[in-house]
């Protein structure tokens, strides 16, 4: 089973440093299939088409203090295994923020 771990945080743009060594190490494990770090939410542009016409908006789709800071794709036997890994990562993060664990829809 694959799961996406969506890492949300509220850190200001200038507060985001390099990945902490402990986290970098965790991301090297074989269960981690891929990962990306995203720039601060303010750097986003949203493309939508609410009335049929394409609309560009400055900022992320969801307007909140927390923004999506990264996505990690992992392989796990079941939700408990995915949650164990997410719990470990969350413990390593600086305070605040959260990890949303969502199962990946395999069949296209």
């Amino acid at each position, binding site marked *: *089973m694959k799961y996406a771990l969506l890492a949300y945080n509220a850190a200001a743009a200038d507060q985001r440093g390099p990945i902490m060594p402990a986290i970098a190490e965790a991301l090297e494990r074989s269960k981690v299939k891929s990962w990306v770090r995203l720039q601060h939410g303010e750097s986003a542009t949203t493309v939508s088409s609410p009335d049929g016409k394409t609309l560009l908006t400055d900022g992320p789709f969801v307007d909140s203090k927390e923004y999506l800071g990264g996505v990690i794709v992992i392989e796990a*036997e*079941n*939700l*408990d295994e995915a*949650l164990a890994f997410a719990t470990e990562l969350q413990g390593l993060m600086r305070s605040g923020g959260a990890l949303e*664990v*969502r*199962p990946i829809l395999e069949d296209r």
Partner: protein
Amino acid sequence: MLEDVFRAEWGRVLATLVGSFGDIELAEEAAQDAFAVAAERWPRDGQPANPVGWLITTARNRAIDRIRRDRAFADKADQLARELVDHSEETMDETMQFRDERLELIFTCCHPALALDAQVALTLRTLGGLSTDEIARAFLVPFETMSKRLTRAKHKIRDAVIPFAVPSDDLLPDRLDAVLAVVYLIFNQGWGEGRVDLAAEAIRLGRALAELMPDEPEPLALLALMLLNDSRRAARFRNGELVLLDEQDRNLWDQGQMDDARVLLRRALAQHGKGPYVIQAAIADLHLETPRDWGEIATLYGVLAELTRSPVVEMNRAVALAEVDGPEAALELLDELPLDDYRYFHSTRADFLRRLGRTTEARIAYGRALALTDNDPERRFLEGRMLELEEAAWPSE
């Protein structure tokens, strides 16, 4: 009686089917089919020697047939189910003893990834065999809402792959706490006109847990606690009026049930149980002694407060302390607690104030409690207390 078998065995049958097919909806449909066939055949042909085995085998056969015939069903069925279909000739024997998988089922239903109200509803539906309508009525929620809640929970279990398993040792303590909390919540939801007897359902669940985890003290203690409380239910109301513990007719107490509860509590204590349910059961037992050892009760509430950090527990400790040190000291403790939305906080304050002769403040506190009360017997009790205070303040000539 088929009804009794149904009630007693639904959970067992469903649990094994969920284990086989990995999908609760599929398991439910299969179980319903099997019970329907039983309802038709057993009155005619007599009950089989192994009713559970018969039901599980029949249900599995039905599910396998459907998986073979019906594309949509086959898509629902997971790897496990497909293996079962492939090996069905080898495994179908209705005299087989099937492993009791109810523990796996209850831990699945009470998984922290599910919202609490979903845990409660799913536990009642799968282990209790209550209908969606019965659960909706018991929790005073529209049928549609409860139906969606249950469907969402079942789909979450399937889509996120919540494992059908008893949690590993490192996770077990927290997960067991969650299961016990759900059962106790169901017990406290109580019962009322037209509603299903949730207290009885909770006790049934508690018995199953105690049976399936005989070496864990907390499930034993929870069952003891529920049995102790339940054994007094005939004495709690007289002509629709609330009767406090000290005024209850002890002849109406179910002595046999109380004795059973005490046996369970002793077993839990013999296992060195020190958890919150052991303490609560011990406190419940102490409350039944005459005269009450308020000092001991206060001490135990203190231990419980340390464990749970619950302001309600602190409040109960204050009540016990009032009996030992008087209401003045207890009132001071009470006033530090953040329980402004809790009706029993106000009724407790009112009682202390009343005993201290602070009548006006007591009436105000009873008023606050009344505003928060949601049932008639309590309302009448509180109004009665207020009336007594008024009459004391302004005695009629």
